[in-house]
């Protein structure tokens, strides 16, 4: 999945695991080289968490081959364990401990001299270094978690939720720091909460659905390969139903969204004018119309839902229109 020719840090072939709560996965092929930022876009998310637990050697896989850092993670020794960090969910902090104390303690344990000052600077935590961890807001707590994971310069960094609770500005800071780590040859793998950061930051997006990998590629390539259509949001005067337009050759699907309608059209010249003409011919007046290029979110949603056209009822969905 990565263009890099270096030996992969994570290599899985036909990996299967039976989770306890219906979150199993099967036939996972994964090959991630150093210097890669990869996102697991999993539905359900628990399958992504389960895969991470397998990659860490917490859970045994039932079938297939798995090599992380060149060996089965269940056989890791001290040195291998040190080279991998994982942040599971939102782990708590020791009570009555300050930000600086925790970071210096973890840095001390990881043998990272000066690591505390470095991450305080990198993650913009200097102003809260003397604050108690329990009194920080969720955003700053998440920053501290990510900062801890970077200490000791691990080769593989895994996150169950990386950008959770982060404002766009803080998310940008995290992306910049992790991009720096990636450029140093580290591998970053996380379960994606949202796809804006995936599109902005990742080299590889692995789309998992029903426990299988549906697609694994660069986000830009994924978007390019799946282009050729537009989403058009419309709001109309009077009654409108999907049947008015869904038979049109350039309409790929119609979906009701919060009182509006979202149509997927071929990205061809004139398709929008043709749609407007068709609506006018059927006596439907447009209140407004907005055209969007498909985002990675749209593309992944379509991958997960399949290519079927969305059927809607004959009457306008409950709306304020």
């Amino acid at each position, binding site marked *: 999945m990565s263009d890099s020719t270096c030996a992969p840090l994570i290599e899985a072939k036909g990996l299967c695991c039976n989770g306890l709560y219906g979150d199993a996965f099967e036939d996972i092929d994964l090959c991630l080289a150093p210097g890669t930022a990869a996102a697991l876009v999993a539905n359900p998310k628990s399958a992504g968490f389960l895969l991470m637990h397998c990659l860490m050697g917490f859970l045994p896989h039932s079938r297939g081959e798995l090599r992380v850092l060149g060996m089965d993670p269940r056989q890791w020794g001290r040195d291998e364990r040190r080279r991998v960090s994982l942040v599971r969910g939102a782990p708590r902090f*020791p009570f009555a401990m300050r930000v600086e104390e925790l970071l210096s303690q973890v840095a001390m344990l990881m043998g990272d001299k000066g690591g505390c000052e470095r991450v305080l600077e990198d993650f913009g935590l200097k102003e809260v270094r003397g604050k108690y961890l329990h009194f920080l807001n969720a955003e700053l707590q998440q920053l501290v978690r990510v900062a801890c994971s970077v200490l000791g310069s691990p080769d593989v960094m895994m996150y169950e939720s990386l950008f959770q609770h982060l404002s766009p500005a803080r998310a940008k800071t995290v992306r910049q720091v992790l991009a720096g780590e990636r450029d140093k040859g580290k591998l970053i793998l996380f379960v994606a909460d949202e796809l804006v950061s995936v599109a902005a930051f990742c080299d590889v997006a692995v789309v998992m659905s029903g426990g299988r990998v549906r697609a694994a590629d660069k986000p830009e390539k994924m978007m390019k390969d799946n282009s050729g259509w537009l989403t058009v949001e419309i709001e109309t005067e009077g009654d409108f139903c999907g049947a008015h337009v869904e038979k049109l050759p350039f309409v790929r699907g119609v979906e009701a969204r919060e009182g509006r309608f979202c149509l997927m059209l071929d990205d061809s010249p004139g398709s929008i004018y043709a749609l407007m003409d068709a609506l006018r011919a059927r006596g439907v007046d447009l209140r407004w119309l907005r055209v969007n290029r498909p985002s990675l979110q749209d593309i992944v949603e379509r991958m997960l839902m399949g290519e079927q056209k969305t059927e809607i009822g004959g009457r306008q969905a409950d709306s304020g229109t």
Partner: protein
Amino acid sequence: MRVVILTFRQLPIVLRTFFRQANLVFWSFGFFLLLQLLGCGLLAALDPKTLRPVLCSAVIALTLLGGGIYGVSYGMWNFFRGGVLERYHRSPYRASAVAAFVLSRFLVLFAAIVIQLVVVYVAFGVGRADMGRIGDHALTWRLSLGPLLVAVALADACFVLMGLCVVTLSRAHFQSYLISNLLFAVLSLVVMLEPLRLVKGAWLALPSAQVMMALEALLGEGAGWSGAWPHLWPLALWCAALAVVARQTFDWMVLDRAR
């Protein structure tokens, strides 16, 4: 060696975080000191000198039991359940994080017991051969101080390790016990020890009984090493056994932790 060095380097941080939690400090240790003062104060008013060493031994044993088991297991449970320990998991010297925590509780508990001993000695004369004769005081303490500190240290280590085992051995069963208050914890312990009644005298083998008997011998009779020894080696055995169990069963994370 590196683990030992790191353990001591982390100790100040862990101790600071402990003393910042006033509630925890009071319910782990301060409460027992108050109990000691209250109990001995009442007895001092009634003046039955023979009862004072027994009462002091019982309260000190209770402090060790509560402060050791509850103090360690409650903190460790929070670390364990909340995922705090996971943060240290990848470190080659991760054992030092737990060791620093356990050592801090050991030291604090030891200090609390020493304070209790000083208080009962100064305020109520417990441990003196004869409360009116200065010379005998010195003699009694010279004989008893060494074994007394060793007995307290062994019992302290024993209950601290037991607190560690409680968390690691049966997490689900003890959950309600760990999050409840101390009195409930002691009552639960009594219920758990109920099967011991089936074997006559079996409760004497428990570390709590051993430490009580050792303290009674030292504080009440002024016995030296010879009087304490029959109770010290069972405590040492308990320590070794609990250390092995804690080492073998300790787990760093709960995989099904709620996210």
